[in-house]
């Protein structure tokens, strides 16, 4: 794990900040031993974080989806159906099938929504996710309705494990996926395809006059975002042991956008940082301030937007002693 650096490839020399991130990942890796009670919470946070990275990808093109929980949910349901069809299926297979399911859904929905921008892009995504939500709720005999379906523990590379070791493996899998997919996404942002994708935010006319189809460029990012949400959904479903239509509910999609902005809009690391802090605040707030946890989160978000527009990653950056431009360019 130490060989992996999440630092962006730039002409600038590596500064201590990228070391900080490595330290962060190592600290996360130590959680199961240091603070075992946080283990499951961090697994959930990383699963959500992956989905938030998906939303972040689209933010880079200036687009906001209020329905990306759709892909999160589709992947999770794909896993649940697979487990029902093949009891004792392997985690690797679940990951593959769930992600493919999300990708496929991303392609189908993406082909339509890439024609829209701004508020309509957001609303249309919302509509698709709500359609899927209604279907999950309504077709009770197939989908288990509002209570969803159980997702029994899969085997891991052929081994049937107890909950303890299984969750530990899941935890490290989540960390590996965070590092690998986070790194890939950061690289993708810097790559020609990713850069072309990001120009949708600033000038589609020029893009068209470069001989590039803006819709196809947007679709490429849309697929990546669906994939990331899918991986997150698989992790969440498997860690949770059950999938419910709540996975797809609009509040869940809004929560992803919420975390993306909280973490620092457009930042991959911010997405994970935001997800971790969000999950911790949410869990402890609901435990110790059961009546007002939503209010606390709402106030937290307002403060971030009004007073720290760079998000947590911006705050973190200034704390680390520098103004951070971050993995942008």
């Amino acid at each position, binding site marked *: 794990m130490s060989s992996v650096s999440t630092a962006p490839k730039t002409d600038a020399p590596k500064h201590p900040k990228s070391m900080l991130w490595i330290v962060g990942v190592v600290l996360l890796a130590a959680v199961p031993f240091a603070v075992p009670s946080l283990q499951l919470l961090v697994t959930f946070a990383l699963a959500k974080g992956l989905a938030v990275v998906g939303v972040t990808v689209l*933010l880079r093109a*200036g687009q*906001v989806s209020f329905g990306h929980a759709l892909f999160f949910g589709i992947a999770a349901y794909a896993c649940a159906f697979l487990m029902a069809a093949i009891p004792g299926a392997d985690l690797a297979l679940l990951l593959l099938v769930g992600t493919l399911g999300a990708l496929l859904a991303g392609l189908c929905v993406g082909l*339509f929504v890439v*024609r*829209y921008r*701004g*508020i*309509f892009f*957001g*609303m*249309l995504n*919302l*509509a*698709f996710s*709500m*359609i899927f939500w*209604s*279907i999950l*709720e*309504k*077709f009770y005999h197939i989908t288990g309705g509002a209570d969803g379906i159980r997702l029994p523990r899969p085997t891991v590379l052929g081994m049937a494990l107890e909950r303890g070791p299984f969750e530990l493996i899941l935890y490290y899998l989540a960390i590996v996926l965070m590092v690998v997919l986070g790194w890939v996404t950061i690289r993708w942002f810097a790559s020609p395809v990713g850069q072309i994708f990001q120009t949708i935010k600033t000038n589609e*006319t020029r893009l068209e006059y470069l001989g590039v189809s803006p819709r196809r460029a947007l679709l490429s990012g849309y697929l990546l975002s669906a994939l990331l949400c899918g991986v997150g959904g698989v992790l969440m479903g498997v860690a949770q042991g059950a999938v419910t239509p709540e996975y797809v509910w*609009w*509040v869940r999609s*809004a929560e992803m*956008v*919420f975390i993306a*902005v909280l973490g620092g*809009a457009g930042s991959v690391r911010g997405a994970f940082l935001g997800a971790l802090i969000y999950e911790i605040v949410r869990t402890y707030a609901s435990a110790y301030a059961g*009546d*007002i*946890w*939503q*209010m606390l*989160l*709402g*106030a937290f*978000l*307002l403060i971030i*937007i*009004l007073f720290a*527009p760079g998000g947590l990653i911006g705050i973190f950056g200034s704390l680390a002693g520098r103004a951070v431009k971050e993995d942008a360019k």
Partner: protein
Amino acid sequence: MNVTIFLLALFDGVSYAALVFIVALGLTLIFGVMRILNVAHGSLYAIGAYATVSLTGFALSMGAAPILAFPLMLISAVLVGLLIGGPIEVLLLRRIYNKPEVLQLLVTFAVFMILEDVQRLVWGTQPYFQSAVLQSLGNITVLGVTYTVYQLILLPLVAVALLLGLRFFLRHTLNGKLILATTEDREAAQSIGIDADRVFLLTFIVGAILAGLGGALASPTTSILPGMGADMIVLSFAVVATAGLGQIEGAALTALMIGLGRSFAIYFWPEIAVLVPYLIMVLVLLVRPEGLFGSPAARKI
């Protein structure tokens, strides 16, 4: 198709559409003028309902006639607009007009979260039900089916009155004309000396009052309980987006479409009733990206 059933479904659809329209009206007005999609609209709707129930309950316990609930509805709605809508605009939205759309939307989402808990702290979690006013208007039997006068006749009338009233307000009063001018071209309006801040505040308060009024009018027909705002907001989003953002008359027609679609679904295929609004929205937006009545923004190079 059986004519009786067709008519019954029509009645049900119209009375449902009336309520949805009243809520969507405020949402689309705010969007049209301020370009902000206000998620907290759902909370204002819920608070309007709670306030009405509390005020009516108090009035009834003082021995007032149930019919007095009507002015109380209006009072609740205005209170919601002034005491909650006003501060939201002045303290929060005013700071973010130059920020990206996403952030504006998220600010209203944060307000939504806060107001959800506020409702719970003030009114608790037990459902409220206060239908004295609805009962005082009595029932009407049509084709062997009993409807309440309130739902079958009053709500659609109020919806039409609001539609006409808002049109009149926008086109024939000074404040309304200022709002329209600002909607059409913000810079131009400011350059001829219109105080955009004042117009925005006015718009947001009117929009919030409409949300509150929607809740107030809904209150005699339904249980008032936590979470009622979250459902309403998605539904009115669907209406507003389908109609075309900022389209007031369009919202009326779309609400009617969605209301009728839903009631016919309940009569003939109840399982898909929940899907109907979103299906209509997706189908319309696929064919007309700018909504049924919206006009496409021209690209100039």
